[in-house]
């Protein structure tokens, strides 16, 4: 039997200043599943993603494809889960797009020729072929977001964890990202409060509030349940609000 892509048991985490962020969370994600993590600001979505990548130490157990997220395994874990942070400027810290997208594979000590191929392939996948020699500060917001995606794709990961993929994007670029996510066939964990994006790109939704999971089920059920959403300080996706008003 193949192990789950993500297995989390009784995860608890407080920031060093004492702010509790996660208060005992357990769930499991199967390979190929597409999961939306929704919840109001401060619910702990970003914190959960960061913990999945092993960037902070928490109480409880996390396993990625059967390997525990502990310091000894981090190298292996980071070949399996890639993260796209909310602000692309945090993720694109190199002088050129090439250096940014090549950063992961080079750290994994891949040979030069393979690195070049991976970079070209990753940029191709996000529709930015030939952007290698540009600098991040010459790009538009949407292009930066896509390059951020490419930096994770070049690592050839199985799980993509995305934090607010549609924040600060104009409607057209947002639509392009949604289309891209729909076509992507990796295991997805998307933290967002863009419920329309969640509805269109995922098949399972978890509602997080005050560091706890309030609901977990098929996206089509959870995101159409007005009572549940309002109870969690959320709103129905816009597309359903309009049909109800007619």
């Amino acid at each position, binding site marked *: 039997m193949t192990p789950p892509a993500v297995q989390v048991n009784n995860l608890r985490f407080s920031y060093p200043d004492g702010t509790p962020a996660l208060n005992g969370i357990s769930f499991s994600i199967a390979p190929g599943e597409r999961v939306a993590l929704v919840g109001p600001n401060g619910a702990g979505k970003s914190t959960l993603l960061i913990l999945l990548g092993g*960037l902070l130490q928490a109480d409880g157990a996390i396993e990625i494809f059967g390997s525990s997220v502990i310091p000894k395994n981090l*190298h292996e874990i980071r070949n399996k889960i890639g993260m796209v942070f909310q*602000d692309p*400027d945090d993720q694109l*810290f190199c002088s050129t797009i090439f250096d940014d997208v090549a*950063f992961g594979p080079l750290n994994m000590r891949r040979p030069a020729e393979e690195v070049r191929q991976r970079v070209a392939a990753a940029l191709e996948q996000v529709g930015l072929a030939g952007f290698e020699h540009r*600098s991040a500060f010459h790009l538009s917001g949407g292009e930066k977001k896509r390059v951020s995606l490419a930096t994770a794709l070049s690592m050839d990961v199985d799980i993509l964890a995305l934090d607010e993929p549609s924040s600060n994007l104009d409607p057209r670029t947002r639509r392009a990202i949604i289309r891209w996510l729909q076509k992507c066939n990796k295991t997805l964990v998307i933290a967002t409060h863009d419920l329309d994006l969640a509805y269109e790109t995922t098949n399972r939704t978890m509602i997080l509030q005050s560091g706890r999971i309030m609901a977990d089920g098929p996206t089509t059920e959870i995101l159409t349940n007005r009572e549940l959403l309002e109870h969690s300080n959320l709103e129905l996706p816009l597309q359903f609000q309009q049909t109800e008003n007619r």
Partner: protein
Amino acid sequence: MKHEFLDHHSCGHSFFHHMHPGAKLVMVVLFIFTVVTIEPGQERIFLPFAVLLLIGLLATRVPILHTLAKGLKVLPFVLMITIFVPFLKEGEPVWNLQIGPLMIQITDEGWKLFYNIILKANIAIFSVVFLNLTTPFHHLLKGLQSFGAPRIITDTLAVAYRYLFVITDEKDRMLLARRSRLIHPSLSLQWKSLSQLIGVLFLRSYERGERMYQAMCMRGFNGVIVNLDEYMLQKKDIAAACLVVLTALLLRICMSA
């Protein structure tokens, strides 16, 4: 937001754009060195150097007006420093002005030195403009690296350059927000809000640094930034650098003899 980027034209295509940054750096530095050693009174020597430099600048295929504008921006600073030289250097007076007890005097030697410095400065400035026009900042850093500049310094400079504009944008947004809320503020309030703004900017940069580090770790970073060496030092780079430097030296030696 838009900025006038320091390396606006540096991604063009010409022989010099594709030259190895290390070889280019050595070439420019030695060229400047041969010029700045020209003594006052030998100004005719400058002409061939100026011609050589002009050929180099034209070969970059950057519009010459853009090049001129870039170089001339630096000139006022040179003038600011050198403007007193004709008055201070002692020697044969060529021009006097008596104001009460004060005597202002321009000397022949002073004038020649001033003229000499201005010519040197122009050649040096346009040589650096040449370097700037053909070399993106990160290539320059790679050039420095190939001469053994410590990685910690070149990497830090690379990241600083990358985030210069990000932080400037952040500052502009915060200033805008401040201006839209402070209407006819008192001076003390202005200062108070400004100091808070600087503090917040500092904190945000600090937090960004932390998030950046997380993003690096997520991609397997373990303390050393690995780069692919795109630039191999080629024979034609060495040949070009040698050619330019030798021509400059030869000119210099023949003309001063």
